[in-house]
């Protein structure tokens, strides 16, 4: 979705001919961790307080959520007025810009570690719970999760500070900026980019956790690291970690116990909150603690009494796990100390599967076994494999962030190739229909990874799993191409900038087209990986021509000229040199019109190809016949049998003629 922006003379940028964004007027107090805020103005209503958030390049935004939330008006939400990509002069590239209605009362919590003015418990319902809950309901209506609910991302809507609104949630992947303290245990275990959109229950938890901080006016664990927070949540429960000994009103405490319940199935739902808001008292939820073993399991210098803690320790010290699992110590501990027979049996099954692996696959099998054992020990944890930890629906975003940042993606691809997600779904305690569809998706992802040709591979997985990811091709990376409609103009611009080395369709562009194009291009994509000279160029040209034709985009002179420079192998496919010369003359003319369809017709015409082929075959045959004849002449092997025969016939004929002439003369002489 292109922004169709224009730049003003004073450096302002206009989005969709309506919203002015001022790069020279930053609003630091409204910044998000990965998006900078600037003053914005609506040309039709200049008095309306607006601001623009400019997502940082390389950050995966949430366009699906933008689309859903645009114009959504809720008392607890900053209204997302408009969004789109636009040239952003400070970065000298295109950027994603989101226009929001500006909250006027400041941020609820300025910094994560500092104290702030607490919200009075008596006003909690009116100022916080009611508006934010209505925002959550609005989000649920649009089937969107916020996943950025934290006090530092909440703003007072008015200068009177009578209502809180949720801040931006679309400039980063879901849960990316969330501190572990306000995330569920499972989400906290994930890599920030791999938390996934999650569910309404995750937002409810973050809401409860934020509320706990707001009523206290401080962060209850300002110095604790993520590891410690998770361990304490596992051992003591989230409510204890977030509220501690704080004295709260009964109804506040009840609300927090309900929303901070670590078991997602028992956590309060929207209906529970509705009842609470209407004054109904619900039966209080008691904290559930992890089952403790009689004796701790010694591992990596520590002793662990719960399976979840042990699984966390396993993930931290991955390479040492296989040994303790294979020698049966873990199974014994699960059976005797933890006294969970099912867990012990599942561990035995995981070990048996790993032992069946062939020698060369033993290491891989051991890694999968460790991942499976971690899943068995902690059935609610995310997919953890070596250094990665992500929810199934967060793997795509995690991969996108890693590729954007240029970091290692091998662990993620290895995880997909070794069917670790499948093991995750197999070890779930209860059936979830969503898992079946996810399992199918992961099967597809694996099949794409297994196909290394252009249009597949890791790039295909990247775009299949991230609708919001712009094309990451180095050719058009700065053009923020989200839609296939913007692809050809971006390539055309790249050509005009002079970036015309190699093919305009690289691995990223091919995969991007494969995923985002809504028309049939399978054949052209498959042909891109053909190795015969010129065949892949034909496929490239045809693919671009199909896109131009289907989208009705003309005037691509730069791109046509670029493709024209790559057309030499196609011209060389013709044998007739006169035909080649004619094509070389015509290509620049067609390129000047920017017509890729005509260019494709010129270079890949089946009639011309057939004619050229047949004429060439005839010429070959003629050459060979001539060669045979001339060689015979050179070697004196001229077949003169016929000549001799002819000469003999001639001599006989002459003889007969002489004979007849003699007879005639004699007869005439006798008669006259």
């Amino acid at each position, binding site marked *: 979705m292109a922004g169709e922006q224009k730049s003003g003379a004073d450096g302002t940028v206009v989005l969709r001919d309506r919203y002015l964004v001022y790069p020279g007027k930053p609003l630091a107090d409204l910044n998000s961790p990965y998006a900078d805020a600037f003053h914005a103005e609506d040309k039709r209503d200049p008095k309306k307080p607006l601001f623009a958030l400019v997502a940082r390049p390389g950050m995966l935004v949430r366009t699906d959520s933008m689309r859903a939330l645009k114009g959504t008006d809720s008392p607890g939400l900053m209204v997302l007025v408009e969004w789109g990509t636009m040239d952003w002069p400070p970065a000298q590239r295109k950027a994603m810009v989101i226009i929001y209605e500006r909250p006027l009362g400041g941020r609820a919590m300025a910094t994560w570690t500092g104290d702030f003015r607490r919200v009075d418990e008596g006003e909690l319902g009116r100022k916080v719970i009611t508006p934010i809950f209505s925002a959550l309901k609005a989000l649920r209506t649009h089937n969107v999760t916020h996943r950025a609910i934290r006090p530092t991302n909440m703003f007072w809507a008015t200068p009177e500070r009578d209502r809180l609104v949720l801040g931006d949630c679309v400039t980063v992947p879901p849960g990316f900026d969330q501190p572990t303290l306000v995330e569920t245990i499972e989400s906290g275990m994930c890599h920030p980019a791999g938390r996934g959109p999650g569910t309404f229950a995750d937002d409810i938890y973050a809401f409860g956790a934020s509320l706990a901080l707001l009523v206290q006016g401080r962060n209850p664990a300002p110095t604790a690291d993520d590891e410690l927070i998770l361990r304490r949540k596992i051992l003591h429960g989230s409510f204890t970690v977030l509220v501690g000994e704080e004295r709260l009103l009964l109804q506040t405490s009840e609300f927090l116990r309900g929303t901070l319940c670590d078991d997602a199935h028992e956590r309060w739902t929207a209906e529970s909150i509705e009842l609470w808001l209407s004054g109904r008292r619900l039966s209080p939820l008691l904290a559930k603690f992890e089952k403790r073993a009689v004796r701790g399991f010694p591992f990596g210098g520590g002793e662990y009494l719960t399976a979840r803690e042990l699984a966390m320790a396993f993930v931290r010290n991955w390479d040492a796990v296989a040994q303790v699992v294979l020698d049966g110590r873990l199974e014994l501990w699960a059976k005797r100390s933890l006294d969970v027979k099912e867990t012990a049996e599942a561990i035995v099954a995981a070990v048996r599967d790993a032992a069946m692996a062939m020698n060369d696959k033993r290491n891989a099998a051991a890694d999968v076994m460790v991942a499976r054992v971690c899943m068995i020990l902690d059935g609610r944890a995310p997919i953890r494999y070596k250094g990665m930890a992500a929810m199934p629906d967060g793997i795509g975003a995690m991969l996108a962030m890693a590729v954007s940042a240029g970091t290692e993606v091998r662990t993620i691809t290895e995880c997909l190739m070794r069917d670790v997600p499948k093991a995750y779904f197999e070890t779930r305690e209860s059936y979830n229909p969503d898992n079946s569809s996810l399992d199918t998706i992961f099967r597809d992802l694996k099949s794409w990874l297994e196909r290394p040709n252009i249009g597949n591979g890791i790039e295909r997985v990247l775009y299949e799993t991230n609708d919001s990811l712009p094309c990451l091709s180095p050719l058009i990376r700065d053009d923020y191409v989200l839609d296939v409609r913007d692809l050809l103009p971006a390539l055309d611009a790249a050509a005009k900038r002079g970036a015309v080395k190699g093919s305009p369709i690289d691995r990223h562009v091919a995969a991007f087209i494969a995923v985002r194009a809504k028309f049939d291009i399978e054949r052209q994509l498959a042909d891109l990986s053909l190795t015969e000279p010129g065949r892949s160029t034909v496929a490239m040209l045809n693919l671009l021509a199909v896109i131009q034709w289907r989208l009705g985009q003309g005037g691509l002179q730069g791109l046509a000229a670029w493709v024209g420079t790559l057309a030499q192998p196609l011209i060389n496919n013709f044998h*007739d*040199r006169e035909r080649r010369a004619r094509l070389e003359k015509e290509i620049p003319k067609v390129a000047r019109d920017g017509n890729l369809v005509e260019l494709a017709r010129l270079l890949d015409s089946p009639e011309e190809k057939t004619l050229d082929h047949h004429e*060439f075959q005839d010429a070959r045959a003629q050459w060979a016949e001539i*060669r045979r004849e001339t060689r015979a002449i050179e070697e004196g092997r001229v077949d003169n049998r016929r000549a001799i025969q002819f*000469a*003999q016939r001639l*001599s006989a004929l002459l003889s007969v003629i002489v004979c007849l002439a003699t007879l005639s003369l004699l007869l005439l002489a*006798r008669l006259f």
Partner: protein
Amino acid sequence: MAKARKTTPAGRGGKGKSGKMVMVIGLLCLVPFSLPTLLVMFVGLLPTFAAAFAERGVNRYAWICVGGLNFSGLAPWLFKLWFGHHTLDYAYDLVTNLTVLLMSYGAACAGWALYLGLPPLVGMLMAATAQRRAIGLLATQKKLVEKWGDAVKTPDEHL
């Protein structure tokens, strides 16, 4: 098929033999009416008969070539016989006349000379034409390469 191939030459040989037989029978029938002519022709055309019997192969032109000139050499004497004294004595005089024999046999020799001399002459002419044709063919080849490139060539070992 093999049977057919086997039978064809035999059939052809049989036909040739029967033709000769008809010719011999025809000549024998003429004996009572023109014995002098037959005598002169038999003696005068001996080189032709020799050529006809000696020549082997499918295309037998030697006896025609020799025979034509041989008959031309003998023809004046035959005319004398037919339009003069068509008697056996005269015929006998003719066949014992050295001039007659020299003329007819000399003409037969000329026939042989024509038959043997013309093919080499034609061969030489053909060779001269082939050289000129080769130049034309090479020019055509060159044009083909100019139009289609080296790919149009077929390596000699594949010819």
